[in-house]
């Protein structure tokens, strides 16, 4: 004998909302983006105004909007001294913010940063080697150290790429290859420092701290070009990158060529990081923290996440630049130290808040 228990037909569900909730969420995210732009404008003016010769905010605004009405002294301070440094802070912040967001996406790891794959150690080694040996380009001596740092970053990129490519560019292999590369270049960097005379060692250490004082109108356009090329290169892949946040298997299942995407973004990260590190040295935590701020405010849609990560990176760099000038009047603390001092507490905050909450 068979007894069958049959449940009744299901009740109709509640009244149905439209896509209005999602549209409201997008509007809130756009407001965050606007807030990021507002902070960016204020910090830009504050950065130009701060320094050994303090300028008034109205003077800076007037000099920027109508240079002909500003005094010649103000024009020189703003355009020849401060603006290159501010532009470099903005561009490096944008580069590190975007590179960090890319790294966290392609590695599927919230703790990934542009330096996870050993790029900063490689850049440090390149710079240290040139400082130690005194090698100089014949007609462009100012470009010797940045070029060496940039070249070594790319070497690190090629090493990691070659190893990871053999295993299908899986995130695990990329991280392992990156850690190995990091240790290799750190050891090489230590060897150069060990061999250096005291005054050379001081120059190497100052470079490694990271500083914006090396910014000039000669090198700002180079970093700007790197940021522009890297931005344009990822524009067609924004939704593929968004899909990758579902994991490699699911992204592949909806038609993303995951391996090709990881390779393309890896090259972009190498370019962004090399461009940023080459002229200002190692600047920590911006590439780690900026993507988290972006994710907390505008979510994972890369059309908003990447601009917000770039904005957050620029805002952190500008704030750190202002702090580095006002914390010790008359002296400029290396910005790499300031970003680390700001970044570490923020990292602790993220950990306390729950690792997965915004990941």
């Amino acid at each position, binding site marked *: 004998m068979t007894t069958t228990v049959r449940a009744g037909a299901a009740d109709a569900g509640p009244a149905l909302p439209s896509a209005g909730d999602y549209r409201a969420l997008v509007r809130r995210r756009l407001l965050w983006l606007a807030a990021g732009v507002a902070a960016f404008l204020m910090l830009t003016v504050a950065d130009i105004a701060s320094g050994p010769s303090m300028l008034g905010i109205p003077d800076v605004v007037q000099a920027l909007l109508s240079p002909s009405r500003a005094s010649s002294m103000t024009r020189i301070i703003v355009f020849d001294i401060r603006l290159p440094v501010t532009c470099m802070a903005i561009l490096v912040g944008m580069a590190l913010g975007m590179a960090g967001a890319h790294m966290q996406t392609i590695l599927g790891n919230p703790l990934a940063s542009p330096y996870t794959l050993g790029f900063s150690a490689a850049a440090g080694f390149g710079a240290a080697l040139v400082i130690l040996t005194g090698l100089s380009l014949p007609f462009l001596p100012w470009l010797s150290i940045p070029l060496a740092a940039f070249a070594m970053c790319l070497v690190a990129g090629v090493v990691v790429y070659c190893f990871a490519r053999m295993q299908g560019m899986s995130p695990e292999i990329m991280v392992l290859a990156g850690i190995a590369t990091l240790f290799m270049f750190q050891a090489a960097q230590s060897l150069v420092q060990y061999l250096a005379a005291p005054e050379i060692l001081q120059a190497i250490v100052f470079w490694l701290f990271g500083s914006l004082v090396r910014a000039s109108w000669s090198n700002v356009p180079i970093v700007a070009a790197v940021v522009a090329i890297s931005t344009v290169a990822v524009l067609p892949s924004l*939704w*593929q990158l968004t899909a990758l946040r*579902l994991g490699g298997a699911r992204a592949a299942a909806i038609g993303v060529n995951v391996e090709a995407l990881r390779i393309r973004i890896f090259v972009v990260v190498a370019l962004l990081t090399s461009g940023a590190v080459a002229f200002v040295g190692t600047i920590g935590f911006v590439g780690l923290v900026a993507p988290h701020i972006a994710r907390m405010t505008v979510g994972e849609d890369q059309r908003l996440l990447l601009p917000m990560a770039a904005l957050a990176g620029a805002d952190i760099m500008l704030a750190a630049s202002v702090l580095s000038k006002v914390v010790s009047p008359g002296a400029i603390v290396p910005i790499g130290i300031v970003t680390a001092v700001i970044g570490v507490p923020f990292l602790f905050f993220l950990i306390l808040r729950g690792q997965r909450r915004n990941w």
Partner: protein
Amino acid sequence: MTLGIETLTVRYGAARIIEDVSDTWQGGELTALIGCNGAGKSTFLRAVAGLLPSTGRVTLDGAAVRQEDRGAQIAYVPQDTGATSSLTVLEVVLLGRLRSLGLRVPSGLIDEAAAALDLFGLARLQTRRLDEISGGQRQLVYLIQALFRAPRVLLLDEPTSALDLRHQLLVLEKLKEVTAATGTVIALALHDLNLAAQFADRLIALHDGRIRASGPAEEVLTAGNLNAMYGVEADIVRLPPARLQVMPIRAPAR
């Protein structure tokens, strides 16, 4: 729509996980893959979807589809329902139309995604993050994403494994409805033999990477097949009007 599979073979190293499997799946009917753990169901589906290297041929309406081109025509929904992503539910569904998404997403597409969620009563979750909803709800969201893609072939790996009783029925009824209305080829791996018997028009019993039996439930779900595939003794009960129920009795030591 007809999906043809010809001598499909998948190897992991020297081991053959799927061996010379040939079959034909028709649109308009629901095909269920059954078999014990490790029988090769997931591997088989992934290979057909072009997500694993394989030998043999896959054809759509008689025309061969290369492995790298299958992603455009065949949607595959993996079994895993874990999530570390904070994408919103509506964004996940939108990703089903990846090829239609650009810098600006058409407003109509967003409305369509909300309507797709609504089919399973999930429209209210549209702004919830994927890592905030339950595993069962995530499984539904991934299924909705696949349906939203409107593929020619839909392959699902254990699509009801995390669902409650009501949603199991809803999902399988919806899949039957879709294949009947659109002719989409739909094949799904299922562990629940009773659900397979109730909803699938055709069952494929995989064992050790080969097809042991295929056809209607009454031909495949026999005591002999179940004993050979699962190592269990089971009664097959026929319920009026034409239903069949598997009642496992014991799993003798082998």
